[in-house]
């Protein structure tokens, strides 16, 4: 999968144009997918702690 180019700065920031705004919405929507690996990472830390408890039986 190729990485999408960074959103270019619009020439008129008050009226950036439909294409820019639509692209911004799309980028924000795509950014939400990072929530999935972030959640898994947090759960993995919890799982690691439980494994540690079970392995070492402290």
């Amino acid at each position, binding site marked *: 999968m190729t990485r999408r180019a960074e959103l270019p700065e619009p020439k008129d920031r*008050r009226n950036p144009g439909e294409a820019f705004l639509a692209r911004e919405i799309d980028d924000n929507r795509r950014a*939400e997918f990072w929530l999935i690996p972030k959640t898994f990472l947090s759960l993995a830390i919890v799982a690691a*702690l439980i494994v540690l*408890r079970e392995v070492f039986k*402290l």
Partner: protein
Amino acid sequence: MNWFLLGTRVLEIVLLAFVATGAIPVVVGAYSFLLIPLHAIRNHYSRAAPYFPRVAIVVPAWNEGAVIATSIDRLMALDYPLDRLRIYVVDDASTDDTPRVVTAKAKQYPGSVFHLRRNKGGEGKAHTLNHGIRVVLEDDWMQALLIMDADVIYLPNSLRRMTRHFADPRVGAVSAYVREGSADKNYLTRYIGLEYVLSQPASRRAHNVLGAQACLAGGAQLHTRENLLAIGGRIDTSSLAEDTITTFETQLRGHRVVFEPHAVVLAEEPGSIDALWKQRLRWARGNVTVTARYRKVWFRPSRTHRLGSISFGLIWFSLYLLPIAMILSSIGLIGLLLMHSNLATVVFRALWILAACTYIFMLGLGAQLDWGISRHAWREVLTFPGVISMFIMLTAFFPGLVERQIPAMFDVKFTQEGLFAFTEFIYTWIPLSMLGAVLARRVEKTRIGRFLAPAMIYLVGYGSLLCAITLDSYLKELQRAEAKWDKTEKTGRVVI
């Protein structure tokens, strides 16, 4: 039948039920955070589209001379068409130089900035807002209304990121992410920053997934004109929770409320326990009103709105009744311990291991949602539940380590009585931690408070401080104490 044995068994079951109440908010907290990744799929972006309605911004201002000029300049610099933006500063009979500053700004931005003066002030934010709302509703120029606080700073792209959701006519209101933005952060503002990450980009995403929002941020709520008219064209003035009531009324009329995590607004938050206590007591007492007012909404699913869903009800009441649940669980544990029940240790470990896992999961996920805040607040991320609570979690997770191995390193050993006293202490810790938070507030006002109060909050935990404030709100409501509007003092410490 042995009545003593039966009585003991019944008491044991009751005490177990008490302990279980402490697990409910923990499980519900974990559940709500497990909804967050679903926001990747269940969000409102597919219905959002470029859209620039004519926005009237109403800024309530009472003695905001220190911050209002910067706020107006920032608003005028928003990435938004200038002919579609008007700012109405409602000066609530200020006694400082607010009128002079706003009048000067109105001259600087003719046709864009308006100074509205109330001669009778001090009635609260909702009255002040209503003065401005009445004016903007007099003609049909306004298509959307932004309600904000005088001290908050909108990032340039924030407003257009909010308005895009109004391309969907079902949406009645949009809220932004209010981020702690003080330049001179202290331990408390860092805790607040972290709490805001957990309660907004984290929890409110979960609320988006559920289709029900608990509260529009007071400093960043955007309404469509239709929604504003539908809720009566005014903000509720009968309670201290006008933001929550507006949010509920919007949804009860079938309009959606959307939280936009990519629209960021910076706000100055209290830097002292006392100021935070006053602010949160106002919020907590407002929530008591909301809970009672919408008693016919809870746990009653409806086709019009999602406020009555079981999930949303559980999330609301888990937070609302958190201090009671925590105290009951401590009573249950102590009761079982005094009965010399074998269950005491088992349920203690189960409860605190569950709490530890949930804490690590929530903080781990929350910290990743705003690295800017987490980087500065790493100490607060690590100590959010309090250093002593973390030690108790360690005891639950690795009992041998705390009860045998660490003492052995110092050539000491727990006696039977010593172990019992230690166990009593950790079982009663949650109510004690709330007491510790109350003491920290008292200590803060003394000469050594500058050093001692932060140390106490790190020890007892920021969560216990919030629980103590909620508990205070119950007491104030029971005493029918006067519910007055205490404005949080702002000094213009916010920077981008």
